[in-house]
């Protein structure tokens, strides 16, 4: 994985941390700041989580705040909604986003609609953390990217950081947010990227995209693990004379429309990259927004580089994922149109 250029902007003396450590610090910091914050999920306590994101938290904050639950996603999220309704700020962990569907009913039918059905009175300030995406050959139950299902549900916010620095700051903002935030962690990045992350608390506001590589000729929009692939493709495109602007959405919904349009108005050309299947993926919505807001600025048909419209494969994972070798031709073709 290529190091992101914005790493260089961090202070050199800061310790380098991976995504797991950064998230662990974010959780620890929220637990320490607010006694109403609780963490719950399968294996999150004594074991420290399937990916060790909650390691050490139960020892530090006790088993009534870092709670091991039975294997029951619907129960975990249902109980978290009840907690959130009456003043707590639960952070629920679902071990893989693919396991979230037993809880889909609670999320879509209850959490997303609670503020609405109580006449604007009862928000559900809850964070649901779940690893997403491929890259570990997990096959069809351990690799999916279901963000579009939740973006399509009014009432939910959806966040997907690409790197340790953003992850810690976004997680803290998500916990403080008064609505239910789906916090999707790219599992491929968990231990693959290390960067400088401050030890102390800091927040990154939701709904702010970030230009992580400025460019002139074409805009590529990405998030999560695919951000690094987009950056690598942008670097290759540069060697062929195409200047690519790379936008990391960070928060998928509510999306930062203005940052997208600023970039697209400048370049007139746009490529969206995501791991999820193409049809009705979030790319479809993003390109529709571009059509609505920047149609007359477009100089080339927009492109999507995505997973296939199939279940997530085991052996063929590297072909399914929209990796740099698939992104680069899309950038070049769009720029040359």
């Amino acid at each position, binding site marked *: 994985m290529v190091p992101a250029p914005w790493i260089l902007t961090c202070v050199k003396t800061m310790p380098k941390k991976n995504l797991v450590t950064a998230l662990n610090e974010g959780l620890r910091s929220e637990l320490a700041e607010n006694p109403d914050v609780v963490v719950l999920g399968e294996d999150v306590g004594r074991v420290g989580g399937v990916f060790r994101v909650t390691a050490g938290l139960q020892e530090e904050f006790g088993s009534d705040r870092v709670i091991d639950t039975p294997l029951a996603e619907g129960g975990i999220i249902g109980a978290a909604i009840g907690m959130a309704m009456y003043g707590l700020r639960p952070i629920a962990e679902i071990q893989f986003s693919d396991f979230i569907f037993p809880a889909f009913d609670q999320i879509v039918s209850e959490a997303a609609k609670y503020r609405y059905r109580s006449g604007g009175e009862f928000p559900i300030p809850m964070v649901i953390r779940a690893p997403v995406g491929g890259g570990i050959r*997990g096959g069809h139950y351990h690799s999916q990217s279901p963000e579009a299902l939740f973006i399509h549900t009014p009432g939910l916010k959806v966040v997907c950081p690409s790197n340790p620095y953003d992850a810690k700051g976004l997680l803290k903002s998500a916990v403080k947010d008064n609505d239910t935030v789906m916090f999707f962690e790219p599992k491929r990045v968990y231990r693959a990227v290390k960067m400088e992350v401050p030890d102390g608390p800091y927040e990154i506001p939701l709904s702010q995209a970030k230009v992580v590589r400025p460019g002139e000729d074409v805009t590529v929009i990405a998030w999560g693990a695919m951000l690094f692939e987009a950056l690598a493709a942008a670097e290759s495109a540069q060697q062929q004379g195409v200047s690519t602007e790379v936008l990391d959405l960070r928060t998928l919904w509510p999306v930062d429309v203005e940052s997208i349009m600023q970039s697209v108005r400048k370049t007139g050309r746009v490529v969206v990259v995501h791991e999820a299947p193409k049809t009705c993926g979030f790319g479809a919505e993003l390109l529709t927004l571009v059509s609505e807001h920047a149609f007359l600025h477009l100089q080339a048909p927009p492109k999507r580089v995505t997973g296939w419209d199939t279940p997530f494969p085991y052996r063929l994972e590297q072909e399914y994922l929209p990796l740099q070798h698939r992104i680069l031709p899309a950038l070049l073709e769009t720029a040359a149109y």
Partner: protein
Amino acid sequence: MAAQKDTLLARYKDMFRIRRFEEEAARGYAKGKIGGFLHLYIGQESIAVGASATLKPDDYVFQTYRDHGTAIARGTSTRAAMAELYGKDPGISRGLGGSMHFFDPANGFYGGYGIIGGHVALAAGAAFKSKYKKEGTVSMCFFGEGATNIGGFHEGASLAGLWKLPMVLVCENNTYAMGTPFSRTSPVEDITKKAAGYGMASDRFDGHDVQEVEARIGAAVELARSGGGPTLIEILTYRFRGHSMSDPGKYRTSQEVEERKKRDPLKVTKTQLESLGCSEDEILALENQVEEEIADAVQFAEEAPPARHDVMERSVYAPSNYVYPPVGQP
């Protein structure tokens, strides 16, 4: 006595085949030939083998993601199973599924499932079809103790009881749901207490003796086949390896694991064979046959062509001229 010895030798061979298959799978995983997740059944072989011995070829079997042992006990070839782990085209799911997603209807194996508990209702559906079509077949569903806390289990068990389905629900209680012991996630220790709520029979016993497993599950299969409805069985067992290959197992002590290994189903059966007058050489001859088979399976998997893109694309939607069911199709 001779018949008992021959039967037990056959059971031993079946268990030893699964054990050696998985040890080689672990080796392939360590070498990076197998990717993703690999959940080993080592220590629980007596259950797959004892249970399969009670079933007919056209009975329906559903298992969790810890599925290699049950598929092989049902008759999946070790070649096709190993090729699947390697993600190769001749694999049992054509290399599209991998370790957790074996699928072999030709041998009455209807899948490993990676989503906990949901497959209990699927197995109830298969049992319904059996009853509806008066097939005389039985649907057997395996799941872990952790699954008994999730809604999917409850919903499937409710239907099985309500419709008096020809079904056997086998809970393989291997003590840990990933890293968390059952005692910390369930208010009751005895899972079969739940059977009363579903109006079904129940049984609960230790699973290290394959003969015991066969006899006790066999009674439940008979009950189901004769129209007596489902049984919830809890078998107390133990996995000797981690939850998956990436699990260091820090939630339990090595003394605990060593203590449980004294009741290794293979060891238990070997002792029983010796007391039936079986010689070292007889057992060794069987083991050598299995060693050859597993070496062949590994070589087959190594040399097989990889999973194919066109097969994958074709596998998403059924063609309009599709004939159901696809029994016997590779």
